[in-house]
């Protein structure tokens, strides 16, 4: 890509904007926290029904990029985003786009499980309720059950839906958060180190879940575990110092990366 001229890149990107196999397209995305620049002209595309892993050393801007995809950066004071990000070809930073609707389409799972301190049922039903997805109580019950089923949590919690979500184990809480995100039927799910607080067994469960979700959703996942990136993703993007170093098929990335820095990072030479 470095070989291409500016104009050629421009043209290629414009073509991609209309390419429906790309769910989300980021073009020249830069993010500033006040004076400090955290992302430098990142061009990264997210493919439909694909798990894209974002890797890179701490502080390189993975979370920052992830947050630009559903405008969670809006909630941070003094954070400024430039460039263009599209979802199905529509610019999500366009004033005509409603951020509430955007976040319903692009859901998020956070690093630390953060269930609402309410019942398990209410945790799941909250999103559908505010978005008016259920017409009746029966509808809602169905959404709750389906979401929990998909998140692989149903069998563990079906008898205690009215108990507090914070009473679950860490891994269950994270799957509850995933179920909560699924409940509003998003198209894209962003996950910021979803397994960093989980033990290997819970991690395996979440990874399995990500695997299954892939057929219905487009997933972007930030992870610090190379093994995890290799296991769950089809595409991997490597960030370093706010720049996108390389984006490639995961297989290629882990066997024969184009960039030396990727190689070094994956081999554990820095980070």
């Amino acid at each position, binding site marked *: 890509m470095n070989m291409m001229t500016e104009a050629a890149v421009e043209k290629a990107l414009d073509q991609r904007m209309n390419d429906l196999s790309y769910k989300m397209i980021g073009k020249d995305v830069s993010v500033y926290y006040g004076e400090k620049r955290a992302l430098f002209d990142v061009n990264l595309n997210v493919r439909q029904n694909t798990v894209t892993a974002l890797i890179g050393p701490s502080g390189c801007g993975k979370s920052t990029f992830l947050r630009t995809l559903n405008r969670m950066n809006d909630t941070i004071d003094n954070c400024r985003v430039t460039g263009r990000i599209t979802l199905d070809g529509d610019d999500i930073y366009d004033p005509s786009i409603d951020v509430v609707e955007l*976040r319903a389409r692009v859901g*998020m799972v956070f690093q630390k499980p953060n269930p609402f301190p309410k019942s398990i049922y209410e945790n799941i039903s909250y999103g559908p309720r505010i978005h008016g997805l259920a017409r009746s109580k029966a509808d809602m019950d169905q959404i709750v059950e389906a979401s929990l089923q998909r998140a692989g949590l149903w069998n563990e919690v079906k008898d205690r839906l009215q108990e507090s979500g914070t009473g679950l184990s860490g891994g269950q809480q994270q799957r509850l958060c995933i179920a909560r995100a699924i409940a509003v039927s998003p198209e894209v799910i962003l996950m910021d180190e979803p397994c960093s607080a989980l033990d290997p067994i819970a991690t395996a469960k979440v990874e399995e879940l990500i695997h299954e979700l892939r057929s219905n959703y487009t997933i972007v996942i930030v992870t610090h575990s190379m093994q995890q990136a290799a296991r769950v993703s089809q595409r991997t993007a490597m960030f370093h110092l706010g720049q996108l170093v390389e984006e490639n098929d995961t297989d290629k990335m882990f066997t024969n990366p184009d960039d030396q820095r990727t190689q070094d990072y994956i081999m554990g030479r820095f980070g």
Partner: protein
Amino acid sequence: MSQVVTPTATVPGARTPRRDIGLKKRYAAERRFRAYGIAALSFGLIFLFVLLWSVVSKGYTAFQQTGVTLAVEFSEKIIDPQNQRASNPQVLLTANYPVLARNALANALGVAQNDRAKQKELGQMLSDGVRSQLRDMVVADPSIIGKTKTVTLLAAGDIDSAFKGQINLSVPQENRKVSDQQVGWMNKLAEAGALAKHFNTGIFFNGASSRPEAAGVGVALIGSFYMMLIVLVLSLPIGVAASIYLEEFAPKNRFTDLIEVNINNLAAVPSIVYGLLGLAVFINFMGLPRSASLVGGFVLTLMTLPTIIIATRAALKAVPPSIRAAALGLGASKMQTIFHHVLPLAMPGILTGTIIGLAHALGETAPLLLIGMVAFVANFPTTPMDPSTALPVQIYMWANEAERAFVERTSGAIIILLLFLIVMNVGAILLRRRFERRW
């Protein structure tokens, strides 16, 4: 990461001599700190106990009142000598009822009708309140005129004090409020079972009176109740709304910093200044009535607002950001995030702040003095616009009275104030429990 390089300081198996890190000292320091804590706590508890003890020991007698149970003859000769009551109901209101009571007492003690001096002393043994007590009976049921009924009459404040043993009877007769003669009668009546202590409902329900035996905190209770209601209804929504705006919506700039500093300062402004403000704004400028609990409520609202705002902001700040992120990430609007998630979690803290503010307001005296709530109000206020007093002001007024019987009533009123506070606090705790349990 899998390949984390650990510092090479520790070699497994190698025994390096331990540096002396002063473990003993550390434990000693910890023990000392605990001792300080326990000492401070005991100190506080002792003072609380002394305070309660002094108030309760002085005040519990205020909840008993000496009464004389007598056979009162509702003589037509005295109440309505010209038999005009059918045409002129006014006579029933103006009749000389104390004479009825005095005669009943004279009868019981066998004092001659024509012994003027003794009759006068007898009259002084009964409260002035008997006038209204007997009048109310007659007005309610005029048919009792001519009959004899057993009535428990209020004893005068001095007799009350003497009967409770609060007057030193060893000093010469001239230097005390009750004469030896009266003490003799008192003992005689007590032996006969006519003079006895009863539970004093009057202290809760009566209005102001210059006679201690007929004085009560009824008006003050209503005034305080109205004011608390006004403070709650105004300061809670205004304070919470202001805090939410400042904490969640307002841009962080110089101006909001200035507002924040000023709110913190306002919380420290002496309360009497609020009284002056209330006098200038609500009474002189807006023309609201003096002595009204409405104005008192407004002034106390101003005083309570900073407390509630500070507490609410702290409670909002304490809600973990992850909860906000979770709601926002689901596509909840800012409003929804705050009202569905943040506010309910902050509620216990907000309630605590509110109750502290209310308790503070309940005990506030100085600003109320300035807006004229230190008035002699005998009639019950029906609306917050009517003149009334407040509990602490009533305590202040009673503390300035000379009669011995007011001393115990002052402490009694303090006990009532404390009970009021306890009720409020318990209410808040129950409410907080409910909110906490929901989560």
